[in-house]
């Protein structure tokens, strides 16, 4: 009996440490990591959630663009919507700005490079925008009603070039701020 309860306590401790170790800066899991993971096991707030955790609220017209502040785009690897650790700082800077300016709304504009199917790229661009949104809601605690998404797929490249550097630049989420 004692031995079993010791094992039980040890397992619980290990499990607790594992969960606690995720912290607030975890990148959302992408496809291919573990497609059969049960969504219920991991708390969305601890992980920053996945895109599917936060339904979009209503849709609001854009409003007046905010000037005088500029945030870098979030960049993505090919065919991926995983947010690299290097991109987190920029997202959290936007989070801080939104927290300090409660009258500002955000539209996350998701983009892809020109390769691949246009229709799939509309979904991939949207998923990239939703991944950033999930981090802002789950980690930075911004109200989801203030954040919308708009996918442009491959329709609006930043760089019209047909090479790796252009494609890298085009795989992005842009921050469009409005009042």
């Amino acid at each position, binding site marked *: 009996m004692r031995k079993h309860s010791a094992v039980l306590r040890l397992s619980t401790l290990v499990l607790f440490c594992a969960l606690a170790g995720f912290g607030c800066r975890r990148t959302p899991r992408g496809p291919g990591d573990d497609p059969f993971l049960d969504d219920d096991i991991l708390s969305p707030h601890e992980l920053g959630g996945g895109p599917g955790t936060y339904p979009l609220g209503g849709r609001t017209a854009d409003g007046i663009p905010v000037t005088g502040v500029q945030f870098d785009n979030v960049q993505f690897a090919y065919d991926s919507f995983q947010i690299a650790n290097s991109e987190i700082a920029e997202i959290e800077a936007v989070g801080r700005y939104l927290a300090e300016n409660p009258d500002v709304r955000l539209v996350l504009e998701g983009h892809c490079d020109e390769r691949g199917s246009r229709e799939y790229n509309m979904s991939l661009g*949207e998923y990239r925008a939703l991944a950033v949104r999930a981090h802002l809601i789950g980690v930075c605690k911004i109200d989801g009603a203030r954040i919308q998404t708009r996918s442009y797929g491959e329709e609006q490249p930043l760089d019209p070039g047909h090479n790796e550097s252009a494609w890298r630049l085009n795989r992005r989420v842009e921050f469009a701020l409005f009042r």
Partner: protein
Amino acid sequence: MTEFRHEPVRTRRRAAAAAGLAVLTLWAAGAGGQDVTVTKPGAAKSAIDIDGMRVPASAAGQTFLATLAADLKRSGWFAIAPRGTGPLAVEGTLRPRGDGLLADCGAVHRGTGRSYFRRQFTGLDPRRLAHAVADEIVQEVKGVAGIASTRVAMVGAHGTRKDLYVCDIDGANLTRITSQGAVCLSPNWWPDASALLYTSFHGGFPDVYRIDLRTRRRSKIAGFPGLNAGADVSPDGRSIALALSRDGNPELYVMDVRSQRLTRLTRWTRSSEASPAWSPDGERIVFVSDRTGRPQLYVLDRRGREPERISFGGRECVAPDWGPDGRIVYSRRMGGGRYQLCILEPDSRHTVQLTSGGADYEDPSWAPDGRHIVCVRTVNYRSDLYLLDTMGDAPVRLTTWDGDWYSPAWSPE
């Protein structure tokens, strides 16, 4: 099944060269060396003589004949026989009738005297009339749907303008459909070919619209928060499959056309879904999902059982279209990075590569004859639409105009 009858190969000089190819194509066509003239590599063809079609010596008459000949050739089933020869013949007259024309004609088999049909066709436009006659010939002689009267919807890009266009299958009558200055994509036809569904940024966000081709009246079908895209109408016209991200993730939904009620079909929150296409019986949907890390094809049925993966090769399998005979065509990213078209039988998973070579082939759409496919061919980042033949005829370029042309959809009739 088509009936072929015996006819000797005309040119003995070419017989040796053509023999091997003929054997192959005839074998492929399931025939036994019958009413067929092999004129070039590709599918077997029946020789048909249209000289028996008497037309007035007017522009309309000449247009009718030239269009009829071109339509019969484009169908892939026929070669135009020199005058007075050929086992098959079109016979009849074209005459003015009121403001328009009347064609009274049919197709016969000279050898047996069999009459395939005899009908009257009326119309104002000699091209349209010829299309109708050609389709009837294909239907009655070959037992398959004709494509002469069909059209292709597409996006034409000129600078930053991306509008919807429609043209006849022979490239005539190119018409711009949208003109709002907003980016449009992914047109799909209503089953009766009266309207198009498409995605547009007209309202500032990607929304799905329906535009009536006759009245040009536009209505918004889906404007939910987030993404609204990839809309495809079911064959019975009652449901629209589309990708929406309103619940926080791009998933597939079906919208009832009448009630606009939504039913969610997929619940994979850690991946994005896209590109739904209905099966010809309206019971199943093929779509793209990246749940394994890369976009692949899946099939689900309306009863909502767990979707089944059906594509297993290639780094990406995207842009599926489900054809009238049950085969699925899609674009696959090959090892070297090129996109090629493949044809997949969903039940056996048997896959055949349709295209090859130094270009990217994407965005395929089946013709209602279940034989031809329109697709995007991109070389050096310039895109044009090509008509491909799954039975071996050479590709034919459809778009010969300035700009980039993509997102084709072949009309259902």
